[in-house]
């Protein structure tokens, strides 16, 4: 099994007033290709901070985080942008679609950044939208979509470039139960068919039910690391 993320003695501190607030303390973890893992814990436990560092949006204060062979602390701004552009996909709680662009254009944007030729781009976008079942909405604007449809577009936008790792921060927080399950099934299907690694930050029990590994955080420390089901990962 291929290890794609290594976290070694990670500590992250933020300035707070005259002192510093420690968001993550001495965290050491390893993730393998194809995992469907979630960071769970109360607000302020460090889930999002950890996700941001893995996503190269932030850097460690101490320790080492290596993603796909790249040490996050050593990356320049441009290199970290390239890492995100090529290998990482983000899914947000509030979807964050571009409101003035159509569904098609929202998904296409990720590929525009990769300078993909137009014909390939079109095929990839249509494939991604077919994956999430939204081919009939390609000309719709985000405002015309339901919450579930909006999040599916966000998933299509994140997966269209076929990233190795998908980072999802509370992806179901704004969805009802039915849509949450629909979204999670879509992501699970992606995980199983494309072997994409998923890392969630969540405290939604519906999400937890799908996870194969649950890492519990409290006050910036890992308090529990449970492997629920390893079949999918083992197959790899």
């Amino acid at each position: 099994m291929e290890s794609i993320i290594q976290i070694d003695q990670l500590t992250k501190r933020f300035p707070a007033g005259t002192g510093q607030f420690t968001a993550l303390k001495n965290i050491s973890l390893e993730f393998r290709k194809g995992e469907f893992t979630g960071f769970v814990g109360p607000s302020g436990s460090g889930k999002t901070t950890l996700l941001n560092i893995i996503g190269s949006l932030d850097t460690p204060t101490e320790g080492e985080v290596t993603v796909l062979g790249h040490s996050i602390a050593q990356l320049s701004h441009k290199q970290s942008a390239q890492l995100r552009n090529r290998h990482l996909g983000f899914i947000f709680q509030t979807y964050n679609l571009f409101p003035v662009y159509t569904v098609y254009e929202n998904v296409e944007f990720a590929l525009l950044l990769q300078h993909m030729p137009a014909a390939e781009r079109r095929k990839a976008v249509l494939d991604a939208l077919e994956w999430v079942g939204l081919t009939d909405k390609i000309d719709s604007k985000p405002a015309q979509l339901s919450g579930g449809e909006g999040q599916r577009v966000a998933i299509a936008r994140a997966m269209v470039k076929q990233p190795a790792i998908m980072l999802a921060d509370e992806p179901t927080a704004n969805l009802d139960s039915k849509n949450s399950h629909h979204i999670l099934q879509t992501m699970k299907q992606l995980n199983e068919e494309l072997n994409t690694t998923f890392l969630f930050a969540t405290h939604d029990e519906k999400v937890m039910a799908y996870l194969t590994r649950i890492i519990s955080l409290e006050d910036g420390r890992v308090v529990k690391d449970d492997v629920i089901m390893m079949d999918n990962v083992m197959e790899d």
Partner: protein
Amino acid sequence: MIQFLLKGIIRDKNRSVLPVIVISIGVFLTVLFSAWFKGIFSDMINVNANFSTGHVKIMTRAYADNAGQMPNDLALMEAGQLINSLNTEFPTLEWVERIHFGGLLDVPGENGETRAQGMATGQGIDFFTPGSQEPERMNIPGSIVQGGLPDQPGEALISNDFAERFNVKIGDPITLFGSTMYGGMAFSNFTVAGTVRFGMRALDRGAILIDITDAQAVLDMSDAAGEVLGFFKDGQYDAEQALQVKTAFNAKYAADTDEFAPQMLRLNDQQGLDEYLAMADYISGGMTFLFILAMSIVLWNTGLLGGLRRYNEFGVRLAMGEAKNHIYRTLIIESLLIGAIGSVVGTILGLSAAYYLQEYGISFGSAVQGGGMMMPEVFRADITPESFYIGFIPGLLSMTLGNALSGIGIYKRRTAVLFKELSV
């Protein structure tokens, strides 16, 4: 990517409408005022050149020192020979003689007694030589109110104001009283062939225009001329070429200490026109700078507001792997696109308004008269090739500058901080 950005600009009215309006207004004003100032200064230069200074002018040194007094006793002698040599030496210019004079116009009654009198400034120009450009150069045919051009010796044009004031009709006799070149009294009868109105108070108060040969005869100035004027044959004043001609001509007389030796001046050298020309450039440049500054401040604020509104979008784009400098670049490209749209709209509007002013102008009447400068009463715009692109300078620069300043905020923030602020 540009197509993608253009779609965003067109669809997101908040991003484009206000900046396009601001830029269009600024560009409109830049184009309009630039063309108008150009027209005013160009008219002013042409009027002064055609009526008074020429593109270059030759006088005796003594005459030049007292030019305001029209001192014909200090006129150029052997003017015909001088013109012949000028035609040979400087064939790109047309050389003409002019005589300015002052005098009294006497309007006789039925019995030949004085019915009315008025002061007049006079000019002797070449009416009769076939192919003479002088009447057209001074726009005399277009300025005639009654009658026509003199077509034989002894005929004169007088200002229409004078004719109306003293009830002078076409064909009436008038008597010119003046002073000969040698200080003697000069008087001669003329028949009024027509009346003129130039739209310049200095000329319209009281003027008499006669043929140069009549002026030479009346003022006892045989083969003499107060001034010899040179005009570039293509009609366009070229300051550099004029300088070369002037330098070459004056060099020939540099060693001559005679106060009656001829001396050449350029248009720029006369009546403070150089300062006016410099002022025209300063005004045009200053106006463009002011518009850039004012619009940049407005668009900077617009850019800041737009940037705040689009924080979310920028954060998502960062997360998707777009580099900060790429986001910044796309902001600049967007501003160039918006600037280009605003510039096109503003230029079209500005050219339309300038065209109206070019055709009809705005009359400032007597408010602009006085001093040594001849000023047209109607200020017209002049659409030149520059009018088609001048607006793009503030249009593109202000939007780009405004967005560049507001976009610095993106650079100043660390990715993670920006990302947190976005709450994405």
